[in-house]
């Protein structure tokens, strides 16, 4: 069984971003970029299945700029066997990415696709669901536990009220959550090996996919600044203050 692990190049989680002066988006020039942390979990999940003998090949896939090759190399260092980049310099909206991934699925024939539950740059949480829909496959979202057994996957989902257990028939798209695993840090030997693994770069055109945006961004603004707090000396004072605030509201 072939497995896809989809990864996205995003602004590193440690970096605080700035809104562009004209409000058209976030200024990402020169910022430190890295793999979307949820996608690291996706890659780890795929690689583990291969290590457990349940998969024959792990293919890391991405849709994004040329530099996303670095992100794919990280996936290869973690243990993916090869990688495919759908190269585009434009916006990557969830629907467009889902279409591109579908085209790759059609070409490569995996039975399982792991994606992060969301990317930390736009927080969309849509690509996995859209891909499942386009493929007409089963989907399991917010996966925090996973067992593969004959033709299906027993998954644990993190839902608002607690944990939900479900069975998903393969082929399927699984969107993974934080607690599924602890992604590995590749060592230098693995990083060196990854440099030699195959990485295909294809265009959306060659896949017959139209990536052009369907959404218009009206305006991006910074969250309101936090106002200075007040220091209070006792719990009683705090209670009184809270009461005042509630009454004022």
């Amino acid at each position, binding site marked *: 069984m072939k497995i896809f692990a989809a990864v996205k190049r995003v602004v590193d989680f440690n970096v605080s971003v700035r809104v562009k002066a004209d409000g058209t988006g976030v200024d990402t020039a020169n*910022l430190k*970029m890295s793999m979307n942390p949820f996608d690291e979990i996706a890659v780890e999940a795929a690689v583990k299945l291969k290590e457990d003998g349940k998969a024959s090949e792990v293919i890391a896939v991405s849709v994004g700029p040329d530099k996303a090759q670095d992100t794919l190399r990280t996936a290869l260092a973690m243990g993916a066997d090869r990688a495919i980049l759908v190269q585009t310099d434009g916006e990557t909206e969830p629907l467009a990415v889902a279409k591109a991934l579908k085209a790759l699925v059609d070409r490569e024939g995996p039975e399982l696709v792991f994606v992060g539950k969301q990317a930390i740059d736009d927080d969309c949480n849509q690509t996995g669901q859209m891909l499942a829909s386009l493929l007409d496959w089963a989907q399991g979202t917010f996966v925090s536990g996973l067992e593969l057994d004959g033709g299906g996957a027993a998954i644990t989902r993190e839902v608002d009220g607690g944990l939900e257990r479900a069975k998903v028939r393969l082929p399927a798209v699984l969107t993974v959550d934080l607690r599924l695993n602890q992604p590995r840090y590749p060592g230098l030997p693995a990083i060196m090996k990854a440099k030699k693994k195959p990485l295909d770069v294809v265009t959306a055109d060659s896949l017959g996919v139209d990536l052009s945006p369907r959404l218009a961004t009206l305006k991006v603004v910074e969250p309101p600044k936090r106002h200075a707090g007040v220091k209070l000396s006792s719990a009683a004072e705090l209670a009184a203050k809270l009461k005042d605030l509630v009454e004022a509201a």
Partner: protein
Amino acid sequence: MKSHARVVVIGGGVVGVSTLYHLTKKGWSDVVLLERTELTAGSTWHAAGLLPLFNMSYTVGQIHKYSVDLYKRLPEETGQEVSFHVTGNLRLATNRDRMDEYLKYCGTANTIGVPFEVISPSQIKELWPLIDLGDGVNTDKVIGALYHPDDGHIAPVDLTMALRKGARMGGAEIYEQTEVTGVQQLPSGEWKITTNKGEITCEHVVCATGNYARQMGRMFGINVPAIPVEHQYIVYDESPELKAYREAGGNELAVLRESDAQYYLREERNGWILGPYEKGAPARFADGVPGWFGKSLFEGDLDRLLPHVEAAMKRVPALETCGIKTIVNGPISYTPDGNPLIGPAFGKRNLWLNEGHSFGVTAAGGSGWQLAEWIVEGEPGIDMLAVDPRRYGAYTSKRYTVAKNEETYRNVFTVHFPDEEREDGRPLKTSPVYDKLDRMGAVWGQRYGWERANWYAPEGVERHDKWSFRRTNYFEHVGNECRLMRDKVGIIDLTAFTKHEVCGAGAEAWLDSLVANKVPSKIGRIALCHALTKRGGIHAEFTITKIADNHYYVVSAGAAERIDSDFLQKNLPADGSVTLRNITGSRGCFVLAGPNSRDVLKKLTDSPLDNKSFPWLTSQVIEVGMATDVYALRVNFVGELGWELHFPIEYAHHIFDQLFAAGREFGIGMVGIRAMESLRVEKSYRMWGTDLTRDNTPFEASLDRFVRMDKGDFIGRAALEQQLAAGVPNRFVTLEVQGVVDADPLGNEPLFNAKGAVVGRATAGYYGHVTGKSIALAYVKPEYAEVGTQLEIQILGERKRAVVVPESPYDPENRKLRADAAA
């Protein structure tokens, strides 16, 4: 925000906060720090937190030592933990040059009082069990190491917070989110600082702005040669081998530095931090820090680090099984020589710098300590020349600074040879006859941006230094130049000299108030004069010549240009009775010296040169060849009959060609800087900046004959009087070092008495090619200054006998200098 403070420190990194802390320790509580975002946000927060005591510089070594001592006591004083892991640090050597470097350093460490050990491979293995000592085939074999048991690493943010707490306890105030938007110097000399939170007026400003040094400097109208360079370190995941070692009771491993492979390695939570100093790291922010850069990092570039990481994996195989968590790549401030900029800003009153720190966490404590001393007392407590911002001149352009800073970065771990000359950013400042000297085989060095011929390679000899701590490839050629100077006649191009012109009705009185010697009042007389600090230490050395009435020509070391210019400018009388001009660039200088020098010069001038007409220590304005207005000074730094010819720069080629044409029959040739060093050491001539610093008074320097206590007041006189009353604590002596095989003293060697106690420190040394003796110049306690006293000097780890000899082993009666023309 306050409207007024005694001192405003700009910049809330560890260096700025330490400066603030130390100002309060000096009793100045009305001090304020302004930080544009939050404390530590620039480079402090991503610093690796290492505290290496190792440093080849006597000054920087003392600064680092103070820091390490301070950080150990801060938690108790402030109640804030600083996570100081006293792991010690181990610097490996895999070749003899490296070992020589460590052994040379040991001399500095001895004189500063830093504990260290030189240890063997088996001791290394004991201290650091996870190491592979190498087989000499696949990996370089470790031959030994320098071990400092007292240092280690610290949490930079915690350290900053402890200093902040200490500063606040002392009354200091810190304003974060406060960005300086404008500065203005008031007629009173105070500074008005405008910020986004309002204005504040202060007596003194300290810039400690790290990455912002250059743009902040521009705001103040000064050029600061500090531009950051990317530094990366790799943070590793948990290491199974390390974990097992620690769980079995192993101590935290010493910080490991394999200098020959250019990396440091330390433990971090059962994993590692590995930091290489690689080739190709770019300078950043040369045009200022862009708006997008907040508390940010750059993307890691592992490819650049690969050779070092691979070397580290061979040395510490546990790295191979260990995942790489992240690469921290952030800007670290650098300067062209890698030392920070601590002290007064050139040309501005009440403006101080604490900038350019590449090892800011290690240097923060000591730099704050000395800068506070300087601001409050008017002078630092130790010689700060190696870090004084005025050691750089106007030549530190943006591109020069970028080139040199990148070069310094990639050389952090290369062997720092005493005769090392780095190649980037050169040639920059050259004498007019540079090309001619180049064709004559000059092997160039650079100082203060100036190209200077260190020596001249004869035909057929490779124009190249094999740098070493020992006698090396140029030894015999330098010897030949020395003999040429002593036996025939030679020329040294000293165009780089700093030259000032002091004119006006008040010139003599004013100069007299600045220096300890009597300034000449007769036209044509020359005096060697020392400007002292208030504490009586030697601040500057000037050769002052009276050219005409109310007209003095003041010459000092080339590298002292800004130190001296700043000193003279800031002390100028306000009444306009004195005018000062820096004419360094408008006059060149050739030293013509040697027994035949008079014969050469005689052919080129009609001015009589016999002793009666032109005695030693006098000057005349003469014609040389067809060139006019040449200041001929009958002095020199090599101890021969000779003249320094200071000529209008446009005559450089004419005079040079004339001298060579006239000198051919007398065997004239060029002599380089290294030969001059040998010649001056043979004459016990002290060099400003190494032998003469603020650490010692002229009495300690045994320059009593250049101090005129009876002439009226001058800066430092009161301190000298006190010293005379209390007893002079050191004396400058000349020592003959015996039993030298191939390693001469070079300065910074400790001197021991018969009981093995350190009783002095050599400040210079060289092989005297003409006397045939290895000579050291040193400060010793007065009881060891008697001629004939036997001491021991430690050179590259070996103790050699050093005997105090009379001053000037060569020509002690100065007959050569005073030689008269044949009748």
